[in-house]
């Protein structure tokens, strides 16, 4: 399953968070999604998944929008920016509810928990999980439907070194199995090890789409090449409405 994002734009009131973004997430590859804080990565991913209505543009999964997929959880697994569970519910209950709501086999619940290493603590309330445990739980939810496409928003956040290595190996394996993997991250060096392609956002707009090789043509690391795309001065960059190079247009 390949994903095509076409002319995606998202306004929050007068502020344009995502500006005419187009890129593809081909199957069999890991596509990295980078940009400074506030550059629009999470917003783009939430619009792709139908969690936010786009102002303009579309996202298709093998030609269908997310809402037209016959079994969305079997087609697309997602880690979004919040766990989306009642803090009093255990991971097992949370996954059971997701499986129920998606019509997935309940047998997948323990399998997914086992895969992310949460089986031993599966009955503890999520509200008492550590950051990394919460993140593993989010990954387990993404894996529940054994999806063909994975859209992961900063999935490595809070993971311990073993977890980061596990995730890196899994992303590689998923892609090698023919799945499409999209992953946002700020860990450029870590990302450089696993991604085949990169989409670089700046102020809500795409400044680079293409293979890692194309970006890394000159001397220096991939990290340096991406860093040069993200920033053009030495100050710590954070995208803000006033910094937005494209004035917001609401028409």
């Amino acid at each position, binding site marked *: 399953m390949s994903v095509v994002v076409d002319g995606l734009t998202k306004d929050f009131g007068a502020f344009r968070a995502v500006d005419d973004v187009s890129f593809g997430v081909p199957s069999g590859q890991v596509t990295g999604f980078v940009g400074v804080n506030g550059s629009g990565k999470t917003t783009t991913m939430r619009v792709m998944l139908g969690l936010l209505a786009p102002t303009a543009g579309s996202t298709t999964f093998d030609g269908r929008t997310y809402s037209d997929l016959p079994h969305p959880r079997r087609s697309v697994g997602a880690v979004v920016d919040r766990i989306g569970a009642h803090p009093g519910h255990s991971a097992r209950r949370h996954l059971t509810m997701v499986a129920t709501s998606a019509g997935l086999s309940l047998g997948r619940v323990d399998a997914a928990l086992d895969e992310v290493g949460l089986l031993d603590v599966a009955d503890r309330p999520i509200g008492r999980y550590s950051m990394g445990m919460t993140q593993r739980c989010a990954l387990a*939810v993404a894996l529940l439907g054994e999806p063909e496409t994975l859209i992961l928003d900063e999935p490595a956040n809070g993971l311990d070194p073993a977890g980061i290595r596990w995730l890196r190996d899994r992303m590689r394996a998923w892609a090698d199995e023919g799945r499409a993997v999209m992953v946002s991250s700020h860990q450029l060096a870590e990302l450089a090890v696993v991604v085949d392609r990169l989409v670089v956002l700046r102020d809500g707009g795409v400044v680079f789409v293409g293979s890692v090789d194309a970006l890394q043509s000159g001397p220096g690391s991939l990290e340096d090449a991406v860093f040069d795309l993200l920033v053009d001065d030495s100050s710590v960059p954070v995208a803000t409405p006033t910094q937005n190079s494209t004035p917001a247009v609401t028409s």
Partner: protein
Amino acid sequence: MSRGVRVDALNAISTPTAWILLAASMVMAAGSLTANLLAFEVDELTARATLQQAMHASTVATLTFSLVAGLVSATSDYRFGRIDQLLLSEPSHRAVVAAKALVGAGVGVIYGLFGGIVAVAVLRVFYSVRDVPVDLTSTVVIEPLVGAVLASALFGMIGIGMGTAIRNQPAAVAGGLAMLLVVQPPMLIGLPEVGRWLPGAAGLSMTFNPDDALLGALQGGCVLVAWTALAVIAGWRRLVALGAG
């Protein structure tokens, strides 16, 4: 949508808040019924009007808590981001809101039934302690309880609709309670030609409340159904417009 109903029902029974609110509604129903009965002399207890007034107090508690339960449930889905996971499983906003509204109605029915059981139990004990005969199967007792079950189901759905539209939990709960307990009672007294059409008053009509300013039970029921539809549609349209946030 049936999967949505299952998962929302599962969520309702596995969330402590829902049980705490149910217990609170039963305590309130029992408390206000008892307080009302205590205000009467023993020789007044057999009067139809006495029972009517006492039953009315208990049903108001039930309806109020049913509304609050709906508001808390719907706004919790935003507060904890549960709405993300619901939409990822069922991308149709209409199906998600419809499932939530149906479960809200089911929870309302449970509030109505438990409120009724509490009311009958309190009446039994109170009248036997006072050694006054009471017919617990008379229409004065049964009509308000049946009406409360139905009105409570609609209030549960209104809570879901309003909560889905307002999103912010404190604002939604405060707004719902203010609408029911602060704005409407004086309007019913001061401006009954308007006040009787509001949701709170329509709910009271459904419980066969004897207040002259109110609509009839059936008419009140129709008005409350209209308010319910309005609230649920408002929640659905707001979810479509804003997404999961």
